[in-house]
């Protein structure tokens, strides 16, 4: 598996660290219902198919979002966090 860092281009998997579902970008407000926090911290859609997830590129220090198929391991596209938040 190879991933494309939005800044450095396509690189070997060993340069990257998986940081979990991109749900992490949607942090609830402090006064949100506890069930929202459980959904944020623990519950996952966990699709067998295309998922949005966070990766960290250790070489340049960038966090980015990858849209990747969990069945084929093919990455559709990668986005900077700014692009992902739009």
């Amino acid at each position, binding site marked *: 598996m190879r991933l494309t860092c939005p800044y450095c281009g396509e690189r070997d*998997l060993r340069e990257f660290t*998986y940081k*979990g579902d991109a749900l992490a970008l949607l942090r609830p407000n402090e006064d949100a219902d506890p069930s929202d926090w459980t959904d944020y*911290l*623990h519950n996952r*859609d966990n699709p067998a198919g295309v998922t949005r997830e966070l990766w960290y590129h250790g070489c340049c220090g960038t966090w980015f979002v990858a849209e990747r198929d*969990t069945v084929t391991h093919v990455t559709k596209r990668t986005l900077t966090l700014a692009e992902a938040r739009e």
Partner: protein
Amino acid sequence: MRYSGLRVVWEGLRGQTGWSPVWRDPDPKPEYDVLIIGGGGHGLSTAYYLAKNHGITNVAVLEKGYLGGGNVGRNTTIVRANYFLPGNSEFYSHSLKLWEGLEADLNYNVMHSQRGLINLFHSDGQRDAFARRGNAMINQGDDAIVLDREGVRRYLPYLDFDNPRFPVYGGLYHPRGGTARHDAVAWGYARGADQRGVDLIQQCEVTGIDIEGGRVTGVQTARGAIKAKKVAMIVAGRSSQVAAMAGMRLPIESHVLQAFVTEGLKPCIDHVVSFGMGHFYISQSDKGGLVFGGDIDFYASYAQRGNLPMKEHVMEAGMALMPMIGQARVLRSWGGIMDMSPDGSPIIDRTHIDGLFLNCGWCYGGFKAVPGSGYATAHLIATGDPHESAAGFRLDRFATGVGLMDEEGTGAQHNLH
């Protein structure tokens, strides 16, 4: 048909003509008392113990592929009870006791081999941690012996004891640990359940779960609708997809764990050896192949195959620990899909839907749990209350924070186990 050594000899003399199919291949009936989704190790053992312990035999196991074709056929076959935390400790202790009587109980040779498991340690701090774990195991009634360096050398003379980075200081020896023939465990439970009247229905994918007024009423399948009062989802590796049919999102993320086997060799590794510093574990199968594995690939996956960096890491760890295996050629590698829970411990519980039960989250430790898990899940389905050995495996522990079982002490969050 009852199996015995005499029977093997007799069939040998008459050309193996007397054997009959091990289980029936029934069509699904329109209604059952209990439906089990998933014909893997845990689903089959649940069906077996429902029939044997609770007399509930109007049961069907629905399997989308073939029996035992998932993770029970894709693991490294290790059986052990060396857990530390209350909640886990009594469960795996109970499961190991079931393993010890399993072959007589099932009248099936699962080739359970208590060859002993040795967890190596490589520093003073690790020695203290393993001594503490050993004490917890002894308190639970299981066996644990702390070996010093020379003690390990007696059992495992082939290790690189003076590895400059991870010299071997000793090991925690668990004599009752070992291995079993993984497929035979699924087949033995399937046969036992079938003999007691359970319908094992293969090629029958569940496509929907019927719920009316907060109560489960049955399932939709590739072979038509089936009604039932109780339904159990026992599908580790696909838990999120099946639970989604009931409108549930689970605290599960699926990851791939790779395993490897070499060509057959003469007996050389007599135990199960684990090397925590490199995350590597190995045993030798009865066919002679060295069966070994490492850590998960650490990204979400349903691919049942992994990537090269983890293969490289596992090979490096193996070479660092026991250089003698470097000449062996790897025949195959494969991947299994792990239900990773946030705290690394499993879930056996009711759901918020009446009559719908959940068994999932086995992370990379499901194989040894097969007997205990089926026993406890059957108890939960039959009585409505958790079995005492599995009372800690609650679904709501992530929402409440009460009763989290973070065995590794790395944090009760995703991607830390």
